């Protein structure tokens, strides 16, 4: 489900079934040299989370992307997010990111790090097949988590 008022109404009435939150983490790099790569990574991550939401609509709540500047302390941000989400009823929380710095944050579980693929210059059908390949890499991680801790 998306983070909009219509889906949240449905979420509130189906809390038992929607037990997974997905948090995209996006680093903002606004320097002249890094801006394009940052935008491409953000585009890629948002496309991926949208098709992930389409596949698992009834079980995940896709939060809006958390964006932060380069200087942000990842550990601190992670702790804050974890604390906020721990007060909800979500049994599983996934963080999706293309930012390699999250790999060194130890106390955050289920951080899925994916290398960003610059999809901006691809034509529609090629982009679609690339994104579906990416989705196929991610899906088993979700189903595995669900079957192991259900």
């Amino acid at each position, binding site marked *: 489900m998306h983070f909009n008022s219509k889906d949240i109404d449905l979420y509130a009435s*189906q809390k038992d*079934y929607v037990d997974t939150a997905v948090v995209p983490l996006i680093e903002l790099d606004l320097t002249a040299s890094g801006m394009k790569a940052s935008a491409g990574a953000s585009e890629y991550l948002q496309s991926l989370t949208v098709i992930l939401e389409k*596949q*698992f*609509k*009834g*079980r995940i709540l896709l939060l809006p992307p958390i964006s932060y500047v380069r200087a942000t302390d990842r550990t601190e941000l992670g702790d804050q997010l974890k604390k906020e989400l721990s007060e909800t009823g979500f049994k599983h929380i996934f963080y999706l990111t293309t930012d390699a710095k999250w790999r060194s944050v130890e106390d955050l579980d289920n951080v899925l790090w994916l290398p960003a693929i610059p999809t901006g210059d691809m034509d*529609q059908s090629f982009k679609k097949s690339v994104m579906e390949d990416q989705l196929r890499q991610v899906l088993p991680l979700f*189903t595995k988590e669900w079957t192991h801790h259900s």
Partner: protein
Amino acid sequence: MSNNRVSRRQFLGYTLTGVGGFMAAGMLMPMVRFAVDPILQQHDAGDYVLTDQAAADITEEPVRVDFTFEQVDAWYTSEVTNSAWVYKEGDKLIALSPVCKHLGCTVNWGGDPEQPTQFFCPCHAGRYEKNGQNIPGTPPLGPLDEYDVQEQDGFVAIGQVKPNTLV
């Protein structure tokens, strides 16, 4: 000869009626056209979206067929890709919507290795028969929706979604 003379008064009367009639018709015609417009709209082929799946390749085994159309959301136009599970029952094409009737996940044919001839929803293990009938005891409460489907120039074309008519 003098019996058929048109007086000045009559001539002006005829002329005014004629011109007035034209003006009234000029105003009424567009209004009538507006009123009956929905009847004149073409409804056949336009509502179908052509896919690149050849109809001859469809067998009794459901395959996923993607189709793309433009969706307008307020002032934002986007290309939306949906899919359908298409198979043949005899010679008849059947297209089922992949949207689970429970909470809207996407179902897969044979997604559960133990039930290779059923649709499976990975979210809460909902299952459906090949014709879309939901299996009692699993979370979904109704059968999968169906698409209007037809063959156009050898390719599958997908139309509007409708409640399941097979079950």
